[in-house]
């Protein structure tokens, strides 16, 4: 009950403020919230949801999953061994700065214009926080933990898993960053070379000056982000319970 109050309190205030402040707005680019809400109903409860949101969600899920797998794997390799780290350092720094619009020409030729390109855009953009956090988390693995595993001659695989588990608080930090990013990237990837999807729809609204509809799309993106964040937290709470225990957050304190 209290949690609900906390979750809805500020949003309620903000929405009310927005509603009141915008109600008399005549600026086409800042329509009244009332109009946006009406547009929301018209746009997203009319089948567009299935035709646009579902493909987007699928791209998002796939892109995020690939980013997660690739980020953790590469991050682990880079964090664990100095040689790959030294070899890839500048190269990764190079690729990190390439924004999606620069990648697209190459992707177009190499991958084509289907969903694959969008997946690549999402993955390539979202992989970095996961990769860097994993690498740093792995590098910071506790020495005594490592020595224990080595002394008992635990097999490589087990040792790697132990290191990953120890780094999981920081890996989750990366995954959380990547979640927000991949929603953005989903939208961005659909802005270029797309024929459906949430981002595509929003951009079409924007370009055809359907401003209330565009705002309704922004709302939907926000809601999507909120929902996914909650889902993420659920997973994280379970996976990192030990960490909260270890750092004393489960013990009541003064």
């Amino acid at each position: 009950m209290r949690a609900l109050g906390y979750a809805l309190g500020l949003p309620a205030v903000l929405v009310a403020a927005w509603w009141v402040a915008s109600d008399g707005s005549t600026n086409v680019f800042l329509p009244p919230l009332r109009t946006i809400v009406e547009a929301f109903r018209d746009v997203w409860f009319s089948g567009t949801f299935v035709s646009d949101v579902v493909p987007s969600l699928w791209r998002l899920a796939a892109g995020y999953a690939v980013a997660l797998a690739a980020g953790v794997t590469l991050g682990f390799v880079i964090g664990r061994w100095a040689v790959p780290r030294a070899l890839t350092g500048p190269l990764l720094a190079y690729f990190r700065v390439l924004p999606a619009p620069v990648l697209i020409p190459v992707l177009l030729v190499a991958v084509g214009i289907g969903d694959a390109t969008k997946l690549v855009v999402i993955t390539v953009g979202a992989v970095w926080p996961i990769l860097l956090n994993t690498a740093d988390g792995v590098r910071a693995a506790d020495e005594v933990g490592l020595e224990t595993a080595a002394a008992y001659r635990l097999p490589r695989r087990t040792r790697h898993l132990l290191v990953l588990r120890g780094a999981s608080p920081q890996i989750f930090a990366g995954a959380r960053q990547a979640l927000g990013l991949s929603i953005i990237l989903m939208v961005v990837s659909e802005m270029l070379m797309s024929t459906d999807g949430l981002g595509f729809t929003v951009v079409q609204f924007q370009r055809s000056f359907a401003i209330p509809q565009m705002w309704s799309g922004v709302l939907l993106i926000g809601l999507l982000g909120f929902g996914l964040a909650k889902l993420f937290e659920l997973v994280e709470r379970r996976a990192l319970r030990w960490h909260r225990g270890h750092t004393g957050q489960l013990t009541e304190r003064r």
Partner: protein
Amino acid sequence: GGDDEPAAASADGLTTVRLASSPLGHLAPIYLAQERGIFAKHGLKVEVDTETSDLTSVPAVLAGKVDFATGDLTTLIVARSKGLDVKAVVPASASTGKEGADYGALVVKGDSGITSAKQLEGKTISVNILTNIAAAAAREAVRADGGDPTKVKLVEIPFPQAPAAVSTGRVDGAWVVEPFLSAAKAQGAVPVGWGFTDLAPDLTVSAWYAAGSYTSKNAKTVTAFRDAVREAYAYAREHEDEVRAKIPTFTEIKPEVAAKITLTGLRDEVSRQAAEKLAGYAQRDGLITSTPDLDELILK
């Protein structure tokens, strides 16, 4: 500015007008005119702001941050029908009116077996943006060839990538404009349709537009601007070599490329008939629900 007439008279008695446009070929006549003193002759001083894009120009014009900007005709029609107070003043680029020698065309891969636009029925064609005039032009090329324009699938690929998309077979056809038309041809693509001329021989592709409120408050300045631009076009028509020489100075186009590409057409009037046609298409494609009043859109 734009609140009082005369707008912003500077010390030398000239009124400053701020133009927003991406650094594209259609600016060449403007720059030439500026150098030749044509704007000054009309009592104007132009400042060109190239830090702009399709995304930002309409709000910038409506908010009074710039006085004139360029926009393609379909976009302006859509904006108008959504109640945005934009007014097309004078064309910025237009069809050359010569079928087979226009600056935009529908191209296919040379060895694809497709020889006419009609054959693209049921196939995929790329355009740079789905909601602007390119989509209309691509469809129109198919229609003019006797095909069903609603049966082509349009996808969005920016012009720079279109030649590659065609030559690697990612799309069956692509609507491209210069310099990519030349580039595509150089990579073995062949034109099969000329959508601009099909739409109208005097088609206005993009226009300089202003906010309606600005045009009513600064009628003199607007007229002066239009006259100056028309004079600029007249000069440019006479001095094509100068235009070609100008282009590489503000774009990344190489002089040898600029010497060969087809230049955009230069026209004095925003074509009303074409606008009606485009409005109809925009409605067909679901971009708008009602045709705007074209008298409101196009400055007399």
